[in-house]
Structure formats: structure tokens, C-alpha cells
């Protein structure tokens, strides 16, 4: 075998070694489960508005649908749980989910998503520093 044909094969093997190691590392690592944030149930509650899997992946669709019912149709969105109908209001959400940090932000921070809801809407934990927004102006503060 000539040297010319051996060099590329050896080079490829050397380059692939780190890739192989990282794959083995990823499969063998036990830490992947821990990355997913854990949300505590609100006090006195034992289930979500919908199934956990639905809420995890589609909660925003539910929120957008309810928002459109309220804002665009002028009706109050309703949620039915155990045969009880409850009207959707933001205050109603905050009755159970009393903290933005431990409810909204926990997952959104984990996936690096910035929520802009609380620029306008009431923050249940009211910890928002309004002063930090004060420097913002559409025309850059000048005229």
C-alpha cells in the first residue's frame, strides 16, 4: 500500500475520534434529564388546565386562542375543568400562578426565550424594575 492512500484514512480516523467520544459522552451522560425545569403545582392544585404534555408544547397556542377570544371577539374565553366553567382573566391565572419567576420565567429562561408580556401586563410578583425601562424612547430620547 502506498503512503498516498494511507494518509487520508489516518487523517479521517484522527478527526473522527473527538466526534465519537462526544457521542459516547452524550449517550452515557446521566445529566440530560436534569436540564428540563420542574414546575411545582400551585398550592391546593393537583392538575394543570390541560395535560402536562399539552401545556408543555402548546400552552402558547391555548393562550393565543383565549387572547383572541377576549381581545378580538369581545367574549370572555372559558376553560372547563371537572365540569366547572371558569372565565379567563389574567387575574384568574395569577390566582394560582402567583410568581412570574417560578412559573413563566423558569422554562423560558431555560430555553432562552424573552417574554414581552409583562411590558404591558401586570406582573403577579411585581418585582419588575420599571426604572430600568425608563431610558427607552422611540426616537432615542431626543427630538
Amino acid at each position, binding site marked *: 500500500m502506498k503512503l498516498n492512500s494511507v494518509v487520508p484514512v489516518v487523517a479521517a480516523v484522527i478527526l473522527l475520534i473527538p466526534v465519537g467520544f462526544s457521542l459516547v459522552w452524550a449517550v452515557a451522560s446521566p445529566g440530560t434529564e436534569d436540564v428540563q425545569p420542574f414546575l411545582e403545582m400551585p398550592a391546593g392544585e393537583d392538575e394543570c388546565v390541560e395535560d402536562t404534555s399539552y401545556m408543555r408544547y402548546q400552552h402558547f397556542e391555548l393562550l393565543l386562542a383565549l387572547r383572541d377570544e377576549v381581545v378580538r371577539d369581545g367574549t*370572555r374565553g372559558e376553560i372547563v375543568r371537572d365540569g366547572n366553567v371558569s372565565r379567563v382573566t389574567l387575574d384568574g391565572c395569577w390566582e394560582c400562578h402567583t410568581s412570574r419567576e417560578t412559573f413563566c420565567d423558569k422554562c423560558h429562561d431555560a430555553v432562552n426565550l424573552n417574554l414581552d408580556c409583562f411590558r404591558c401586563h401586570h406582573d403577579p410578583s411585581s418585582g419588575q424594575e420599571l426604572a430600568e425601562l425608563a431610558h427607552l424612547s422611540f426616537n432615542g430620547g431626543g427630538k
Partner: protein
Amino acid sequence: MDRRRFLRISGMTSAAALGCGIPVLKAAPGTRGQGHGPAPAATNQWAMVVDTRKCADEALRAACSEACHREHNVPQIPDHQEEVKWIWTESFENAFPDQTHALAAQNGKPVLVLCNHCTNPPCTKVCPTKATFKRESDGIVVMDMHRCIGCRYCMAACPYGARSFNWRDPGPYIAEEDRKRFPVRDIGVVEKCNFCSKRIREWQIRVEEDPGLVEAEPVPVPACVEAANAHAEGAMTFGKLDDPRILHLLEDNHTICRRVGLGAGPNVYYIV
């Protein structure tokens, strides 16, 4: 075919085609829906009657604006160029420029002005995102702040100057506690009067839960109407266009609307 003959035939053909088209254009029923004359409003349209005689009281008008602006977290920005307003005072000749003349006695008199929740609103037609739209259920011209991209076409289209742009973040002007009552807006969106649609919805829920309540509280009362009537009973009246109270006021008094010639079909009526 020589050139002269070609031109004659093509000219006659065009004239014939145009002639056929004219009756079709004429027959198109109300495709524009604009121009002079009253635009038909649905009877489920919320409307307001403002008695300009009773609203001549400066304290009344101040209370009225303050009640609205407090309720809806409208920021009181000192810089006139960045001010946001939902209901405010204009002089008669500015509110009704086409219904006065240079020597008219009513010139200079104050008039409370707000969004007219037009039957044929020009603002909703120009909105590229349908952020502002006319609600079919009750005719209120509503803003969906989530969709507004701040292009301000609606501000250019509104003949009443009823819309304000948020040049700066209104957040610092609003206490966190007040946000519980009504959401503030974000920098870069347009806002305006919503005929107290939140109060209307709350009233609807109350009446749904207790139908007997409609006797004591026949209509929802917007914040401005509540404040104005606390000063002078009957200064402002709110109701559906088929509400006998509204109809009687319109029958018994000389009422005008702002800039009716534009065909927007305003639904705020002024007793003069």
C-alpha cells in the same frame, strides 16, 4: 387598412366599450359606501350623546378626561409632542370645522372629543395587520395591541385625530399597582378610546349571571360618562343606537356629528 381607417375603428370600439361599462359602474350598489349622506349604522352599535351645553363646565371636562385616563392607564406625558390622549377638549371650530363660520357665536366654545367608533372607519381599512378593527358584535372600533406594528397609517387615516402614538415607553408613568386594573401599552404602538369595552364586558357578565340586574343597570356606563354625569346629570349618554334614551335625545335636540361629509359615519352625537 390605412392608418386613418385603423384609428377611426379603434376609436369607435373604445367608445363603445366605455359606453357599455358606464351603466355597470352606475349599477354597482354601494361599493364605495362613502360620500355625503348618513352612512347606515347597525342598531347594535354603541353610541354616545354629548351635551355640549352641560359639558361647557371646565371642571366636568377635566374630571371626565381624568377618569378615562386613570382607568385606562393613559400616561400623562408633559411633552406636548409625545402626549397620549383618549378624550380631551377641542374648540368648537376645530371639532366642527365644516359646521361653523368665522363669525359664529359658538366658535371658541369647548367640546369634548374622543374616538367616534365610526360606522365606516377609515382607520381599520388602512391597518396592514388588522390590529384595529370594527367589532361586529357591538360596532366598537377596537385595538389589538399585540398586533400593532406602529406604522401609524391609522393616525393618518383618522379624520378626528383620535389616535395617539406611544413615542416613549409609558411604563415609568404608570404605577405597577395600576397595571392590575388595565394593561399599559408598549413603546411604538398606537392607542385610542375603546368605549370602555372592559366595562361593557364586565356589565355583560354581571347581567348574564343576574338577568334582573338589567332593570337597575340598563346599560354599561363608561368612565367618562360616569364622571361627567356626576357633575351634571345628562351631560353624556351612552347606549345602543336602538336604545330609546338615545333615540329620544336625538329626536328632541338639535344634534350634530363631526365631519359627516367625509362619510366615516361617526357615532358620537353632540347636542349643540
